[in-house]
């Protein structure tokens, strides 16, 4: 069971390693470089790294994602006006100790290379920009021995604030992803019973079919709960910076709502596959497709069909709760409604098709 979250994480990195974030949106940013020359310590090549940063962010590599509306042509106040009037989507501010912190200048030893990202209210742009900035800063600090990791401070003007690594953004997807595996587990478990004819043996005893299928499903729900805790534990061990006062109860609730769909789809699948092998194969394809379309591991954008996939809503809800502490009905209410309806529907279809398969009472 431990293997699944690990598998998912490696899958996630694989997915990232090979894509340019798959975004369709292009957004406009302005960069403010506060990394000024230090008159007291002219021997430090300040500016150099921040200029490198500016070059990188306006390079070809990001031209499909970013339009740079000037570097150092606005002061913060005018930039915020631009942001408010929707002329730009984000402001990137390079902190004044950026270069020195990277070179660990003795006079600023305790300083961190900080980049601020500010958007109006769009946390998704914030998240995506964070990833890009982290990538650039890391590529710079990689070339400097002993350089500390960059610190990204991101905020919307509305006050939402976060401070993430790539890993943090993946956690909600990993938690939900580890539960979508339960669909496979259920389908495989039932297919195995069928294939080995143990299901038939059980069904020649006076125990009701309903009882048999319920006990198999309950076993998988318990597995799902364990999976959930493993994924959460793993994310903590690997060091997520999710909010300290995350409401885990609600996350657990969302995860279990999502699990209803997993169980339902597992039952539907089990009612027509002939062997455990097929169950494994088909459910893996379904799970993988759902994770991709449901954007478990990518920044939510306009992946076609994502609106019909429970993953989309579960991950969205968990992200909102875990990363932004947003828990209101207006934020995750629709997610909960969708997950409940989808879960109930698939579960009912699953049970009906299972009963039809074993039609005799």
């Amino acid at each position: 069971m431990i293997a699944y979250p690990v598998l998912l994480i490696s899958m996630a990195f694989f997915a990232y390693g090979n894509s340019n974030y798959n975004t369709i949106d292009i957004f406009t940013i302005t960069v403010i470089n506060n990394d000024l020359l230090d008159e007291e310590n002219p021997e430090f090549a300040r500016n150099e790294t921040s200029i490198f940063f500016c070059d990188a962010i306006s390079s070809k590599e990001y031209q499909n994602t970013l339009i740079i509306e000037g570097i150092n042509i606005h002061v913060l106040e005018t930039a915020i006006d631009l942001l408010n009037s929707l002329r730009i989507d984000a402001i990137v501010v390079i902190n004044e100790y950026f270069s020195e912190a990277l070179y660990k200048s003795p006079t600023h030893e305790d300083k961190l290379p900080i980049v601020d990202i500010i958007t109006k209210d769009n946390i998704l742009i914030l998240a995506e920009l964070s990833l890009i900035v982290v990538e650039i800063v890391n590529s710079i600090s990689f070339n400097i021995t002993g350089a500390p990791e960059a610190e990204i401070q991101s905020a919307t003007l509305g006050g939402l604030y976060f401070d993430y690594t790539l890993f943090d953004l993946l956690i909600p997807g990993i938690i939900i992803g580890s539960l979508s595996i339960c669909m496979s587990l259920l389908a495989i478990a039932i297919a195995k019973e069928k294939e080995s004819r143990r299901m038939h043996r059980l069904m020649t005893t006076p125990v009701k079919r309903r009882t048999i299928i319920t006990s198999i499903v309950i076993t998988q729900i318990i597995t799902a709960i364990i999976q959930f805790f493993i994924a959460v534990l793993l994310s903590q061990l690997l060091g997520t910076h999710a909010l300290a006062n995350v409401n885990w109860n609600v996350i657990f609730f969302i995860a279990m709502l999502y699990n209803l769909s997993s169980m339902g789809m597992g039952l539907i699948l089990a009612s027509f596959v002939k062997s455990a092998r097929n169950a494994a194969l088909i459910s893996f394809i379904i799970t993988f497709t759902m994770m991709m379309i449901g954007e478990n591991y990518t920044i939510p954008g306009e992946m076609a069909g994502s609106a019909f996939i429970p993953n989309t809503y579960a991950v969205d809800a968990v992200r909102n709760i875990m990363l932004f502490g947003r828990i209101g009905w207006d934020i995750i209410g629709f997610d909960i409604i969708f997950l409940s309806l989808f879960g109930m529907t698939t579960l009912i279809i699953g049970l009906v098709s299972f009963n039809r398969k074993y039609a005799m009472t």
Partner: protein
Amino acid sequence: MWKKIKYIIETHQLRKYFGKNLKAVDGINLRIPKGTLFTLLGPNGAGKSTTISMLTTILPPTSGTAYISGFDIRKHAKKIRQIIGVCPQELSIYGNLTARENIYLIAKMHKMKKIDYKERTDELLGKMGLTDRADDKVSKYSFGMRRRVNVLMAVVHDPEIIFFDEPSTSLDPQSRRVVWDFIKEFQDKNKTIILTTHNMEEADILSNYLVIIDHGRIIANGTADELKGTLGRGDIITFKINSYMHSGDVIPRIQGLDFIDSVYTLDDKTIELRAKDGLRRISEIMETIPTRIYDLSVRRNSLEDVFLSQTGRRLRD
């Protein structure tokens, strides 16, 4: 209301079609009195397991009726499940449980009391020679041991009617004997047993009554002796003749002997004949054949021959 049941199992024109063309079971009529060891003998794909699946309430029939102990399999499946024990053809056991746990599982599903099933399980394990290994995981068992567990799981709740679907398939002769002895014991206790097999020796030794099934139909029925009797008594002698002769040239000569029941060819070079006291008078037969013979074998009339005479095929091929 209680009514006297003449036959503990009774079917009328029982059919199961898979799709339009595959007639797995094609109109089977059975009347089995209580206490019978009843065998369904037939080659692979004859429809034996499908028949068992219908009688054990797993598979709904396409048409026809079947009553187990007076209960309709369609309407009173639950009642039937309380009085039957089923040993499926496949190994339907849990590899990660021990033999004991596997058996307990079925006992619990039949709502047996713990003191009852504990004692009974020990007794059953002893009979199958599994006591020493009873607490090992079944996945560590040999194939033969697993089959024995498979059999035990069918009988722990002491059912009135027991279905054994090829219980001894691919067992070595020794394990097969153990299983046969085990089954016989239930016969002695006046349980009704339905056995399927394509092993004619097994059918011959165990059955009180048997039907031969082929392509979903009963092609012969009776006791083993009755069935063998339909072919005439005596020994069966098979041999091949030398390459330049044809069996057609040889047969008329053999037919001339007065103690020969019948003689026929299996292929161009192979001749089979039936003769009373054939073994003792084999030299007389050989004298009539003007060529060298080889691959000579002599055996008793068997159910295999019944099948052969009914279908022109062998049971296993």
